C-alpha cells in the first residue's frame, strides 16, 4: 500500500499532479513538472506553509501557463473602481479566483498573512470562489498583493465587469428571509394560543379566551402588514393593469381573514382565523422563496465586459503605460502580449498576429493577419507581442456593438406560466361563488349568515395549495437538473422548456468538444518518427503542439538540440541526430499545396517530407444519438460562425441543407432566431461563445454549453455542463412531466377547495375546519409534487 503510493507520487508533479517530464525539476526530494510549480513550492516552504500539501494530495494547479501583467493595478483610477473599501490605512478588495477548488486552497489563501504580514486578513467564499483581502495600503500595493497570489498559483480573474459593479446580491431574496422569519415566529405562537380554544376551555379558564384572542391579534398585525405586504401591493398593481393573477385571491383571503379575526375577537363572538392566516402567509412565503432561489455561484447575466480585461497597455512616445479600457480612444496605439485579448477593432502595425477567434466567431483555427489588416475585437493573440492602432472605441467594435442591439435593452418577455393562465378564471369563479352564496342568504333574510358565508368562501378558497404547487414542483425539477449539471436561471424556465419545438445549435464548442480533437496522419510515418515529432512538440507552447502531444500520447525519450520556434509558423530541432521540422507548409518550405481546410501540421525529417497531421473536430459524446432522438419530434437547425468545411459531415444530422447556416455573424444568428420565432416556433438555442450572445438572448430558452461552469458563459437562461450534453432530451422530457405534475396538483388543490366550499356556502365554516384544511392541503401538495417529480425523474433516468 505504502510503496504503491510513493510509486504513484514519483511519476507525478508534487504540486499539481501532472505527469513528470523525463528530467523533472527537484528540490527537497520533491519533483515538479515545471519551473512554475517548483516556484510555488519554494515560496510555500520558505514561509512554513507546507501544510498546504498535507490536506490534499497534489492540490496545486499547473503553472505552465504564462503569467499575466498587472501594471494597470497601479493606476489610481482603476484601483478606486475595483476595491470594496479604502481608507488611509486599509484596503478591502474581493477577488475572483477560478483556481480555488479544494480545502488546501482555503487553508493557503487564508494564511496569506504568513507570506506577507502587510496582508491583514483574507477570507474565502468557497462556492463563489472569491477571496476577500484586507491589506495595509501603506506597506503593500494592490499590484503586489495580486502578484503574491499569482506567485503561489492563484491568479485572480479581473475583468471589466468588476468595474461595472460587482454582482449585486439578489435584493428580493434578502427581503424575503426576514419576512419568513416573522411569519414563522408568529405562526408558532398563534398556534399555541389557538389550541386551548379548539380543545374547549372550561368555564373557569374562560377569562383566558379574550387574553389569547388579543395576543393573536397582536401576532396577526406584523404577519398581515409586514410579511404579507407584497401580496397586497402585487394585487393592487395587477388590478390597475387590469390583470387578475393568483395574488388577487390571496390578498383578498388574507384581508378577509384579518378583518374577520379582528371583528370576532373584539365583539367576542368567536376565535377568529388567526392561525390559518399566519400559516397561510408562512407557507406562501416559503413557496415564493423556493421559486426565487437561484445559484449564487453562477452568473447568468454576463456580457462581453466580463470577458474583456480591465486595462490595456498603451504605447505613447515609446513608453508603455496601462490605460483603463473605458479611456481607450480611436487612434491610440496599444500593445497586446501573448495570450491577451484585443479589446477594440484595430489595425495591425507591428509583429506577427496569430489570433484565436474561436470565442468570437466560432472559427476553430487561429487566424494569421498581415500588417495593415484590421483585427476585430475579442480575439486572443497566440504569438508574441503585437502593436495595434485602435480604429473604433470599445463599445462600437464589431463584436461589442451586438450589445447595442435593442434585444439587450428590452426585458425578455415574461414567461407565461400555467398558474398565470388559470388564476384569472379561478379569481372570477371564486368571486361568483362568494357573491352567489352571499345573495342567497340575503334573500333568505339571514344577514349574519350572508356575511359569514361570503367571507368564509373567500377564506377557504384562498388558493394557498394552488400557489404552492408550481414553486414546489419546479424547485424539485431544478434540484434534479442541478444534480445532472444543468443549471437553470429561474424556475419559470422549466415551463418554457416543456414548450420547445425547435432546436438551434451553434457548432464550435457547442456540438464539437473543444477538449477532444481527433487526429489523423496523411502520409507514411513510422513509430520512431512519431517519437521524434512528439519529443519536438513537447517543447512548444503553441496550442496545436500541445494538442499534438496530448493525442500522440507517447513518453518523451530524447532531448532536443538546436531548438528553434518561429512563432505561429513552426518548430525545428535536432533529436537523436535527426533534423525534425514541424509546422505550416510555408515553414517546411513546401510549394503551396492544397492543404485541406482543417488545421494541418506538416512534418519533415532530415529533409524528407513525410506528410501532415490533420486535426478534426470531434462531436460531443452522444451527439449523434441526441440529434436522432430530438429529430423525431423537433425541428433542428445549425447556425455557425465557422467556415463550412464540416458541412459534409453534418448533413446526415440535419433535415435539410437549408437549415444549416455557416459564416454567420452574431447579428445574423440573432435575426435567424427572430425569423423562426415569427413563424410561431418556440426555440431553444444552444451556444457557447460571445458570438451566440444575441441569439441566446433572443431565443425562448438560451442554453450556454460549457465544460467548466465557472468559466465565462454569455448571458443565458441556463448553463449546461458539456458532460451532460447527451441528456438534453431527458431534460425536455422531465420538464414536460413537471408540467403534468403541476396540472395534477392543481386538480388536487381544487378538490380541497371544493370540499371547504361545501361548508363555506352554508355559512358553517368554523375556524377549526379552516385550521385543519389549510395545513392538510398544503402538506398534501408539497408531498405530492416532490414525490411525483422524483418518480418521473427516476423514470427519465435523471436520478
Amino acid at each position, binding site marked *: 500500500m505504502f510503496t504503491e503510493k510513493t510509486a504513484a507520487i514519483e511519476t507525478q508533479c508534487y504540486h499539481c499532479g501532472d505527469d513528470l517530464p523525463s528530467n523533472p525539476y527537484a528540490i527537497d526530494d520533491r519533483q515538479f513538472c515545471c519551473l512554475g510549480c517548483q516556484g510555488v513550492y519554494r515560496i510555500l516552504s520558505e514561509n512554513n506553509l507546507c501544510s498546504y500539501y498535507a490536506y490534499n494530495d497534489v492540490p496545486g494547479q499547473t503553472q505552465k501557463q504564462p503569467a499575466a501583467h498587472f501594471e494597470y493595478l497601479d493606476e489610481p483610477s482603476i484601483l478606486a473602481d475595483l476595491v470594496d473599501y479604502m481608507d488611509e490605512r486599509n484596503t478591502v478588495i474581493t477577488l475572483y479566483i477560478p483556481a480555488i477548488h479544494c480545502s488546501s486552497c482555503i487553508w493557503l489563501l487564508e494564511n496569506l498573512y504568513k507570506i506577507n504580514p502587510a496582508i491583514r486578513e483574507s477570507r474565502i467564499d468557497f*462556492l463563489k470562489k472569491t477571496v476577500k483581502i484586507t491589506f495595509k495600503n501603506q506597506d503593500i500595493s494592490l499590484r503586489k498583493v495580486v502578484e503574491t497570489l499569482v506567485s503561489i498559483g492563484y491568479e485572480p480573474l479581473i475583468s471589466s465587469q468588476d468595474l461595472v459593479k460587482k454582482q449585486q446580491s439578489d435584493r428580493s431574496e434578502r427581503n424575503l428571509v426576514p419576512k419568513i422569519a416573522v411569519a414563522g415566529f408568529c405562526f408558532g405562537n398563534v398556534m399555541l394560543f389557538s389550541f386551548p380554544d379548539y380543545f374547549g376551555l372550561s368555564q373557569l379558564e374562560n377569562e383566558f379566551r379574550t387574553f389569547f384572542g388579543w395576543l393573536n391579534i397582536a401576532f396577526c398585525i406584523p404577519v398581515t402588514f409586514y410579511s404579507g405586504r407584497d401580496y397586497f401591493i402585487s394585487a393592487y398593481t395587477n388590478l390597475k393593469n387590469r390583470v387578475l393573477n393568483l395574488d388577487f385571491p390571496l390578498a383578498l383571503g388574507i384581508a378577509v381573514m384579518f378583518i374577520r379575526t379582528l371583528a370576532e375577537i373584539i365583539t367576542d363572538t368567536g376565535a377568529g382565523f388567526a392561525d390559518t392566516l399566519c400559516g397561510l402567509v408562512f407557507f406562501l412565503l416559503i413557496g415564493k422563496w423556493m421559486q426565487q432561489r437561484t445559484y449564487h455561484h453562477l452568473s447568468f447575466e454576463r456580457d462581453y465586459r466580463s470577458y474583456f480585461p480591465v486595462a490595456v497597455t498603451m504605447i505613447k512616445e515609446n513608453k508603455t503605460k496601462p490605460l483603463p479600457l473605458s479611456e481607450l480612444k480611436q487612434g491610440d496605439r496599444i500593445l497586446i502580449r501573448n495570450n491577451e485579448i484585443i479589446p477594440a477593432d484595430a489595425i495591425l502595425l507591428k509583429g506577427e498576429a496569430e489570433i484565436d477567434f474561436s470565442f468570437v466567431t466560432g472559427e476553430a483555427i487561429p487566424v494569421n493577419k498581415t500588417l495593415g489588416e484590421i483585427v476585430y475585437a475579442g480575439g486572443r493573440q497566440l504569438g508574441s507581442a503585437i502593436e495595434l492602432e485602435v480604429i473604433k472605441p470599445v463599445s462600437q467594435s464589431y463584436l461589442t456593438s451586438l450589445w447595442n442591439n435593442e434585444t439587450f435593452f428590452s426585458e425578455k418577455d415574461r414567461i407565461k406560466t400555467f398558474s398565470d393562465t388559470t388564476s384569472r378564471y379561478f379569481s372570477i369563479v371564486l368571486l361568483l361563488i362568494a357573491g352567489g352564496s352571499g345573495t342567497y342568504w340575503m334573500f333568505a333574510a339571514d344577514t349574519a349568515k350572508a356575511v359569514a358565508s361570503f367571507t368564509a368562501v373567500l377564506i377557504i378558497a384562498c388558493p394557498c395549495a394552488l400557489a404552492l404547487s408550481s414553486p414546489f414542483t419546479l424547485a424539485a425539477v431544478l434540484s434534479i437538473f442541478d444534480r445532472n449539471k444543468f443549471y437553470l436561471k429561474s424556475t419559470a424556465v422549466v415551463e418554457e422548456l416543456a414548450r420547445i419545438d425547435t432546436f438551434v445549435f451553434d457548432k464550435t464548442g457547442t456540438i464539437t468538444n473543444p477538449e477532444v480533437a481527433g487526429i489523423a496522419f496523411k502520409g507514411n510515418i513510422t513509430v520512431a518518427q512519431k517519437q521524434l515529432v512528439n519529443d519536438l512538440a513537447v517543447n512548444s507552447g503553441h496550442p496545436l503542439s500541445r494538442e499534438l502531444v496530448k493525442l500522440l500520447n507517447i513518453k518523451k525519450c530524447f532531448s532536443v538540440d538546436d531548438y528553434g520556434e518561429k512563432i505561429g509558423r513552426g518548430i525545428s530541432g535536432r533529436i537523436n541526430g535527426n533534423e525534425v521540422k514541424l509546422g505550416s507548409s510555408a515553414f517546411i518550405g513546401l510549394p503551396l499545396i492544397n492543404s485541406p481546410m482543417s488545421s494541418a501540421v506538416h512534418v519533415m525529417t532530415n529533409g524528407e517530407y513525410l506528410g501532415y497531421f490533420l486535426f478534426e473536430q470531434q462531436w460531443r459524446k452522444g451527439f449523434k444519438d441526441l440529434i436522432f432522438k430530438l429529430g423525431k419530434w423537433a425541428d433542428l437547425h445549425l447556425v455557425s460562425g465557422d467556415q463550412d468545411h464540416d458541412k459534409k459531415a453534418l448533413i446526415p444530422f440535419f433535415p435539410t441543407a437549408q437549415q444549416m447556416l455557416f459564416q454567420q455573424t452574431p447579428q445574423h444568428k440573432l435575426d435567424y432566431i427572430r425569423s423562426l420565432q415569427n413563424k410561431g416556433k418556440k426555440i431553444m438555442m444552444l451556444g457557447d461563445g460571445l458570438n451566440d450572445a444575441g441569439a441566446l438572448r433572443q431565443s425562448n430558452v438560451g442554453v450556454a454549453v460549457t465544460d467548466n461552469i465557472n468559466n465565462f458563459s454569455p448571458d443565458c437562461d441556463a448553463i449546461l455542463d458539456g458532460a451532460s450534453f447527451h441528456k438534453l432530451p431527458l431534460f425536455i422530457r422531465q420538464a414536460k412531466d413537471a408540467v403534468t405534475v403541476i396540472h395534477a396538483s392543481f386538480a388536487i388543490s381544487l378538490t380541497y377547495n371544493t370540499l371547504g366550499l361545501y361548508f363555506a356556502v352554508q355559512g358553517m365554516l368554523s375556524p377549526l375546519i379552516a385550521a385543519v384544511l389549510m395545513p392538510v392541503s398544503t402538506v398534501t401538495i408539497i408531498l405530492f409534487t416532490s414525490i411525483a417529480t422524483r418518480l418521473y425523474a427516476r423514470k427519465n433516468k435523471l436520478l
Partner: protein
Amino acid sequence: MNMIYFLIGCSILLALIFLAAFFWASKTGQHDDTYTPAVRILFEDEMQPENQTKSDEDQF
C-alpha cells in the same frame, strides 16, 4: 392561574430574543456562505515543524 400570564410573557420574550438573534445573524452575513466555515474549522491552528519532521521519521 395568574401564573400563566407571567409564563406566557416569558415564553414570548424568549421567542422574541431568538427572532432578534436570527435577524442579527442574517444581517451580519452569517447565512451568506454556508460552506467554507465547515471546512475552516477542520484546519489545525499551527502545525509544529518539530512534529512534522518527527512524523516524517516515523514513516521511513
